[in-house]
């Protein structure tokens, strides 16, 4: 019984694991603008998001499921797209957009 359950689980889990194999995605396509603003690239913790969200909550409506296929910038986030979508980092469900250092690396602490 247990073995059969495990096999069924493996059957469904295997493709999901292979799709979601990316752990951390570095987002640096807007690096010039980021440097002007005094922040570094974003290290997006994909695995961490997978723990709390189902794939369908982000893909493919908010983010296309391919690396470098999404044109993200802070203005879009502030306009309620991408990371700043209604139930994401523009809501009280998680930390807000102004906490720069939670996503961006090399944030100059100022002074």
């Amino acid at each position: 019984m247990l073995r059969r359950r495990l096999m069924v689980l493996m059957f469904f889990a295997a493709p999901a694991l292979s799709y979601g194999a990316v752990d951390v995605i570095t987002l640096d396509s807007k690096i010039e603008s980021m440097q002007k603003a005094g922040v570094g690239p974003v290290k997006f913790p994909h695995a961490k998001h997978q723990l709390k969200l189902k794939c369908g909550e982000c893909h493919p409506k908010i983010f296309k499921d391919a690396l470098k296929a999404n044109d993200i910038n802070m203005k879009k986030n502030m306009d309620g797209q991408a990371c700043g979508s209604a139930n994401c980092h523009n809501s009280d469900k998680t930390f807000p957009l102004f906490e720069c250092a939670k996503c961006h690396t090399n944030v100059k602490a100022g002074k």
Partner: protein
Amino acid sequence: MNASSKVDFLKVAVLFSLLIMFGFVMSISVDAEAQQPAKKGDAAAATKKVDPTDPTSVIYLDTAGKAAGVGDPNKPAGEAYKAGRGWHPAALAGANLPKDKYGLIDWAKLVREKLVKPRHSLDPAEEEMPPLPMDVLIEAKGDFVANVIFPHEMHTYWLKCEVCHPKIFVPSAGQNKMSMVEIAQGQWCGRCHGKVAFPLSDCKKCHTSPKKTATK
């Protein structure tokens, strides 16, 4: 657990949830009943007190016709007093003040719609300072985020110059090296915004002027 005991458990669970629902509905209706006579009682007590020859019994009404104060300075009759003898979140929430998307009171809208007209000072001898109608462009550093147009007018409506100048901001355009990181750490705008003024998470309330160079 076999099938029949599962069904029994489900039945019990449904029964309990129905009971709780019923109790909740009853408690709401009981509350509503309890509130109505109390209001009537208040009104009756208020009508009994009125004595035209006694100056302390005068009731002042605001423009909306609601009690704003009484002749007796020891007995304020404002809405806040009625709601619980003071300013507290529940009393403010019930006052139908304009709110922003977070449910916080929109103090700027309150001014623009002329819903309040506070005295400029408690001291009548103090000279009145009219708001300063000067907007300052603060450019966002990155290529995408919209620039900020800082409205002196709304700020000076509520605050004196010395609240911000020169301690928090040098009174000279472009001389304040601000950054969003520092603001989020509680410097610059973050001295007030996120504490006593609207929160920093409301990005587009300040970042209003789109960059011409921004692609989208």
